């Protein structure tokens, strides 16, 4: 009796410690969310979202940053989603599970996922700007500096590399939920492998591709390190094109908090911008979590 009681006490205490750890993590998330949302909610207004910064970035809105972020994630998605989806198709539909090629590709994808984002920035600078861009300039513009410098295109492509593993993993998970009976049925009806993939497998996993895209967009909107030296700009008076530098939400926060002359003066804008970025990624992630939850439910059914 006594020993079992002691055991119980110990068990309760230990379970309590693990529960406390979980609760601390939840608390951290809640505190971060509330502090930033409370700090930034007064700043949030239609005007703040749609106007340009004024008075040397101490007043005004963040429209160019939102615009730049949107362009960045759109171009990034256009590059990352097709390639990610195709890689996932290869891994689930073509490659044999334990072949060396499949294993190497999986290893490469996981490595891509853990490479620090700043390395992508260096790669973007070394490859896209200094190599591809410089060669384009040399070949088409007679050496005039046009593409061999940081701009929106190179930043987006750098970001696409960073988000590629996110897309691959999500799409792969979704492709696996398509029942093999469907594939078998399609093949039995005389469809070729490619027809089966196109008409049966892909439509069945469209929500997974969507999840992957959303997660990639959320990641791309929040990352700053890869675009630090591949295209992000401190301030621009005009909206960017493909060959221009651009403003972006995350970089805007970084610049305002660490590089501006008077940090206290811009504090409301900092909180406002952080709040916008956080809400943006928060909503995107929520959507992805719900979508993924549905996919997993479908899988267990």
């Amino acid at each position: 009796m006594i020993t079992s009681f002691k055991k119980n006490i110990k068990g309760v205490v230990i379970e309590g410690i693990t529960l406390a750890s979980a609760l601390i993590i939840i608390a951290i998330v809640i505190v971060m969310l509330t502090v930033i949302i409370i700090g930034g909610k007064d700043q949030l207004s239609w005007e703040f979202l749609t106007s340009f910064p004024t008075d040397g970035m101490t007043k005004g809105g963040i429209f160019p940053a939102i615009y730049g972020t949107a362009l960045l994630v759109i171009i990034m998605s256009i590059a990352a989603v097709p390639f990610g989806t195709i890689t996932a198709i290869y891994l689930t539909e073509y490659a044999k599970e334990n072949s060396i090629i499949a294993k190497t590709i999986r290893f490469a994808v996981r490595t891509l996922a853990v490479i620090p984002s700043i390395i992508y920035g260096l790669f973007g600078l070394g490859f896209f700007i200094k190599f591809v861009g410089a060669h384009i300039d040399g070949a088409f513009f007679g050496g005039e500096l046009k593409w061999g410098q940081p701009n929106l295109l190179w930043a987006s492509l750098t970001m696409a590399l960073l988000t590629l593993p996110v897309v691959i993993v999500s799409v792969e998970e979704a492709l696996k939920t398509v029942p093999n009976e469907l594939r078998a049925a399609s093949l039995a009806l005389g469809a070729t492998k490619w027809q089966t993939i196109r008409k049966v497998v892909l439509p069945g996993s469209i929500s997974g591709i969507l999840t992957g895209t959303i997660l990639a967009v959320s990641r791309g909107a929040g990352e700053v390190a890869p675009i630090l030296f591949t295209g992000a700009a401190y301030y621009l008076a005009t909206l960017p094109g493909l060959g221009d530098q651009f403003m972006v939400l995350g970089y805007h926060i970084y610049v305002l908090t660490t590089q501006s002359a008077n940090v206290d003066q811009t504090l409301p804008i900092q909180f406002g911008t952080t709040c916008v970025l956080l809400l943006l990624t928060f909503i995107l992630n929520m959507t992805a979590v719900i979508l993924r939850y549905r996919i997993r439910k479908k899988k267990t059914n």
Partner: protein
Amino acid sequence: MTKNPLKDKAAGPPALANSDQDRIDITRKKFRIGDYLAEKVIKGVAFLSITIIVFIFFFVFREAFPIFSNSKVVKPSITEKIAQAPQETYGAVTDKPIKQSKEVNTQTNGAATDSSQVQEQYGVQTIEPEPESAGDEKEDTYTVSAGSGFDDNQSALKTLVTKDWVPVSQKPRYGILALILGTFKITLISLLFAAPLAILAALYTAIFANKKMKEIIKPTIELLAGFPSVVIGFFALMVLATFLQQIFHYETRLNSFVGGIAMGIAAIPIIFTITEDALTAVPKSFFEASLAIGASKWQTAFFVILPAATPGIFAAVLLGIGRVFGETMIALMATGNAALMDLNPFSSVRTLAATIGAEMNEVVFGDTHYNVLFLIGSLLFIFTFFINAIAEFYVKGKLMKRIQGK
């Protein structure tokens, strides 16, 4: 679950199907250009990930490479004649315009731009138009002989293994030891904070939690994983730093402690997710067997499940290290960014990644400083690559063996 029929061409009932196959052979063997092309394209694209890894390695290293070569063009503007103290590795005095010093100056090396102090510390230093000066050659062990000309990069390479990081001064020195120490210090702090928290929380989620709690914890962690690091950095800079300073009363507001905690927050989702995966991968039979011989739930959790999943947890911590190691934005915003060589957790640090992030925008492309930053990048890349490789092959292999009882 049935096998994916798209994958097994060879499988299927061989003997019976043979006759059938002969009959439909005409349609089956028909060459379909669409299918053929699709397969080739898909295969080609799938190799993209591998190609990217190779490219990253190649191009990051390519920009760092000039530092190892002697072939760099001698800058005509640089003339020098140095007598050096034995401890000091190198001092170059250039008569090209001095770049404005950035925030890299710290207590230890802030004096570097001050020429009078430089003279006191490093001995005779004169600027002469004549690069050759036979008398000084003997004293200066590091400068290249007059015939081959002065080589900026060679000297930079020699300063790498020192503690002074003064890239922008008359005598640029690229000692990365303080940066490495700072990175390790901050990694340690963040791990001490994040690893126990994340592992215990994962243990709770995997073993003790009921379904409802699981449905709260897991999405919350996923949301935390989705927090942009710049937002965590902002939170650390604006809120956490002040809050922690009020508790611990240390001097510098931004230091490795604040940065470490903030990076820990960023690393929690990674450690949690992988640990939880490892814990749930332990077969149910382990759990049931333990309970059957009279162990309680917590005993089972700590003495059966946790040991069985150790390699996975190790992998989780490794990947957490990788995350913290390469974290840039939080390091830039919350660590104070001073390259100090001390072990005090409450002093400012400058990490490798933050150095790249802060200085790359301000260097001259192709400059030695630029090359050194890429060299640091290569180090980071190699480090994370191997961490991932260890986590992948060694740990997972061990985990599988242990679980399958081999």
